[in-house]
């Protein structure tokens, strides 16, 4: 456990005006912060996701950095190729980053990601997790939480399976660095990105981004929900080095999951019993994380 630190957030703005993100989009805030941390000497690979649309249509772009749009399946593989080209050109100090959604990471892109992580490719992979296929209209992904509503898991048959533990999967690839982060804790996010930026090998950031239309939540509550996710331990903040050394960022103001769930329409069908089950699952996951951290 460690206390979160205050740091300076870079002034540079590398996400320009006129992007097409929805009102209250958590990922737009996350992207703005991320590009501040990564700086101009970055090539960002982004597979099909909301971010195929958000930066705008050719010949315009809101990105002020180099952006390579890639096939849905291919983020980590395309990034491996960009890395190889830059290395051949002697540009080892140019950062190759990935910005992929949870669908592009947990589901369709996991083979390419696993391959790149096993090869320990020198890339910084950011998974922007909004817990579903939001760009295509909120279908379930393997990052969608248990019992949540999506357009393919209607309230009469909500999601029957728990969310995939992507951090455990990445940790077990023994990559040098993996961390969770979310926008309600911008200094923690920036610190982790700046730390990841200078490590060589595969780095993974699991970035939690509330999605107002997909989560059926008010657009002004994005930051609040991001914060409640951490406080309720739905989404704890932590780092894993070399798949072994865990550091958990302390959030002492712990709250029950109920407050987090109640703010989102995607959980409005949950009964008191369902909420209890969710609370138990979260408590169990926290214990599991603590056990892993102690090992």
């Amino acid at each position, binding site marked *: 456990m460690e206390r979160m630190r205050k740091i300076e957030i870079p002034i540079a703005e590398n996400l320009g005006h006129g992007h097409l993100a929805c009102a209250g989009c958590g990922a737009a805030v996350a992207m703005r912060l991320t590009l501040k941390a990564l700086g101009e000497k970055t090539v960002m690979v982004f597979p099909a996701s909301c971010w195929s649309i958000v930066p705008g249509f050719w010949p315009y772009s809101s990105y002020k950095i180099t*952006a390579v749009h*890639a096939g849905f399946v*291919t983020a980590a*593989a395309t990034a491996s190729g*960009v890395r190889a*080209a830059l290395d051949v050109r002697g540009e080892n100090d140019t950062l190759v980053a990935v910005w992929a959604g949870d669908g592009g990471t947990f589901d369709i892109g996991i083979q390419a990601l696993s*391959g790149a992580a096993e090869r320990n490719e020198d890339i910084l992979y950011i998974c922007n997790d909004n817990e579903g296929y939001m760009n295509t209209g909120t279908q379930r992904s393997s990052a969608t939480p248990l019992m949540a509503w999506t357009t393919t898991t209607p309230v009469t048959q909500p999601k029957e399976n728990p969310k995939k533990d992507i951090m455990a999967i990445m940790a077990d690839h023994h990559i040098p660095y993996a961390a969770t982060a979310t926008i309600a804790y911008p200094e923690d996010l920036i610190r982790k990105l700046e730390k990841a930026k200078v490590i060589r090998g595969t780095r993974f950031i699991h970035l939690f981004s509330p999605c107002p239309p997909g989560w059926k939540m008010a657009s002004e509550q994005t930051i609040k929900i991001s914060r409640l996710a951490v406080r309720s331990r739905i989404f704890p903040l932590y780092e894993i080095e070399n798949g072994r050394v865990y550091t958990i960022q302390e959030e002492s103001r712990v709250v029950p999951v109920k407050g987090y769930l109640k703010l989102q329409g995607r959980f409005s069908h949950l009964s008191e019993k369902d909420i209890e089950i969710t609370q138990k699952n979260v408590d169990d996951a926290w214990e599991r994380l603590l056990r892993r951290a102690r090992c």
Partner: protein
Amino acid sequence: MPQRSDLSQRGGEMKRVITGNQAVAYGVILSRVDVVSAYPITPQTTIVEELSELIASGRLKTKFLKVESEHSAMAALIGASTGGVRCFTATSSHGLAYMHEMLHWASGARLPIVMVNVNRAIGPPWNIWSDQSDSVSQRDTGWIQLYCENNQEVLDTIIQAYLIAETVKLPVMVVLDAFVLSHTAEPVEVPSIEEVDAFLPPFCADYAIDTQEPRAYSVITTPDYFMEFRYKIQKAMEEVPEVAKKVDDEFKARFGRGYGSIERYGKDEAEVLLMTSGTVTSTSRIVIKKLMEKGLSVAGVKMKRFRPFPSDEIYEVIQGAKKIAVIDRNLSAGVGGIFSQELRASLYLREQRPPVFGFVSGLGGRDITPELIEEAIQYTIENDRPKDEIVWLGLKR
């Protein structure tokens, strides 16, 4: 295994006895490829093995990404080629089919990637032998396709392919038959790397990744512009015949070997033409010679380039022919052999439209023997028109 060539040595050409797959590896190294990314599949595997050895020997600066799938192999090259370096991969059959999405991506992004496909049937039933159905299935992906007849042509075509690809900014697939070429050793003239350097300049991409001048690659385009991107690909394809001829002429001037897009051999002003691609052509050369000696009016046409389809070049060499027989080692079920279908389509608006006899043979690696080829020619001579859309050769009924 034949001795590995010391490719860095100075001097003229060296004659080596090498397999088709080794010829591929030599062509790649001589072309000074920067990034290779590949996944193994029979019968392509000895290409990646040979390249691994050559690269591991430390004499080459090529980076080899040993990825977890063919889909990722092509994706990695799309990333690397966007980064402005020369790229290569090789695959076969299911591997090529798995790459399909990325083949469209490579041509759509106008990346001059060169890939070898060792023709192999696609299952089921499971089969590892020669069959063109894998490569012809990719005909609409915007790749140039060049088919090879022997190991010398394989090596030479790879070197030529980079010059063509980098001139028109489209990817090239170099195709060779499984086992008949991939695993069969033949004498091959291996040029020195200096000679190849003089022929093939370093790759210089127009819009390589440059963080000083940030760009957004392959991004979303509205209906207002999308069609114009496709039109430009078609225009680039239309440049290929002239570019490929120039490249081939220059190659011939330097190395003494040229291939053309279409080669006609046998009797001048023949009444019956036999069109083939790949190694079937070598067998056909013997059959045509024999039948000419018997006094038959026959000639052969070897089709090297399948995409862009060489309509004008073909029309030029078929002048005066009464009938054309095409042997397809591929099948588009419900239609027939692809080469014969495309030939028929290309002749439709022409003045001379000799009937095209479509023979399907040799699927899944069954030998296309001299006897079968002779049978095809005899059938074509004896009938005014084909009795069926598809004439099966050597089929057990």
